[in-house]
């Protein structure tokens, strides 16, 4: 009935997660970095749902509820911080935030 093996979903979410990681590492704009983090969280959700279906267990789906709650809260905080920073920097290009100073 299911047609597609679980590992296909797992590999797919692995690739999606990797794309998110690459984005976080190469981008310098906070909002885009944040978008890439959302990609990573989506990959995690996909993994959980696929595993939950595989084990026929409510656990996997349960985590997704919590991840979504956390992601929603994170977006409120994160974008709040970004917008607040932009407000105090005014005309300064948000890209110039001295972000990855190692």
């Amino acid at each position, binding site marked *: 009935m299911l047609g597609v093996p679980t590992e296909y979903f*797992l590999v797919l979410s692995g690739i999606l*997660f990797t794309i*998110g990681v690459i984005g*976080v590492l190469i981008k310098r704009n*906070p909002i885009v*970095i*944040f978008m890439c*983090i959302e990609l*990573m*969280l989506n*990959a*995690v959700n996909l*993994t*959980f749902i696929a*595993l939950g279906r595989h*084990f026929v*267990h409510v*656990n*996997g789906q*349960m*985590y997704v509820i*919590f*991840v979504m709650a*956390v992601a929603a*809260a*994170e977006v409120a*905080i*994160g974008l709040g*911080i*970004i917008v*607040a*920073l932009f407000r*105090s*920097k005014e005309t300064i290009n948000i890209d110039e*935030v*001295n*972000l*990855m*100073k*190692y």
Partner: protein
Amino acid sequence: MPGSPTIWDDLTLILPLIVLWITSFVLLLGDVVVWKKNRDLNPILAIVGTLIALGIAVYQTISLTGDKAFARSLNMDALAQVSMIALLVTGLLAILLAWTYLKNRGLERGEYYPLMLLSVSGAALMGAANDLIVLFIGLEILSFALYVMAGFSRSDIRSEEASIKYFLLGAFASAFLLYGIALVYGATQTTQLSELASRVHSAQTPMLVAGIGLLIVGLGFKAAVIPFHQWTPDVYEGAPTSVTAYMAGAAKIAAFVAMLRVFDSLAPVSSVWLGAIQALAVLTMVFGNLLAIAQTNVKRMLAYSSIAHAGYLMVAIATLAHRLDGPRGAQAGELAMTGSLFYLFAYTFMTLGAFGVLIYLSNRGKDYQQIEDLRGLVRHDPRTAYAMLFFMLSLGGIPPTMGFMGKWQIFYAALSGGEIMLAIVMALTSVMAAFYYLKIVYVMCFEEPREAAPAPAQFSFGASLSVLLSAAATILFGIMPGLLYTLTGLVR
């Protein structure tokens, strides 16, 4: 769950947390609705709430009422309770510091204390988690509050940059942690730590290895372990000093207690992760101390010092891997557990003390951040200088201070667990560390102040009391560590 304890038993076990939550709600509403202008009432009520929670936690710990609670989501064992006490003490000292600091900076806003109490409860949940998802949510409660608190000084661009940097890297790390949880779940079909311990051995698949690797990355970020430490110095420097002090203590305790729990359950597959933890421990100890030497800003130096201390605690976690290697290993594992709890207490007292001195001095109408600013401090403010001296000696691990006792316990555990190499690196880097702590002592005591003595610091109740308590604890538990052993010894 039929036959299990009633809901009231479960609620009683988390009573300290409930007190914290009620206090934060009262503060939140009270500040807006009831006492609109009285800014001193906020810290006082926060202190009262924390003290009540602390009292209950100590009582419950001593009377050994710990048990698993809420359908095994929480494990309120001695580790959870002792770490909760450590967190509540950290919170108490940090509230006292914030009382002075926020007033000096005109940052008194009602939301600070509720956020802080919520984050303490999140950190305590991390320490009590028996389910990885509870650990994750606790971590997020702790982190969300810290992200906002780091940017609390809205007029200071460095504070806002600290906030955004902490947020982005923290969220990045959380995603790694979550993916790690997902893969561990995929390999073992469970995320309950107590279940995990019995299942991991038969589930040694590549997926489990990848999951554990991602867990190490995620937790390593939070614990500021090299090479996942990049956020630490900037965030410590940029955040308001009272927030830095709190963050240094609470985040470290929470991260390491969570690590102790996770790696304790993963001990059956220690061959998978031991190498990685050893490598991280060595890197963190060596580079944390090396980089600290070069700093000229005290807050930055303390940031690198906190990284170095994370390295020493990683040694304890590596020792935990030998828990199942016969009686000797089991004993070493126990020592590592109790030793790291003791060390976390010591760390929080001395770090909050050192930041407390900076906050106390900032009362003089000048921001004390540079090592240069402390030049000749002993001439015009001997009491504060001596307090700082004790904290530096303790951070450097020089006897008879608490820092030495903590370091000694971990060192001894590592030796008896067979982690000889780590023990040697630990000893060598501790010598290295003494250099930069003693540099501050030297600057304070043996150099002439460059300018005329500034006006003496106004008396401020909060910071004075906090520094006094930290200094007293550092010395008392250094000379009589047995007093604290009665508490940390309960873990195991």
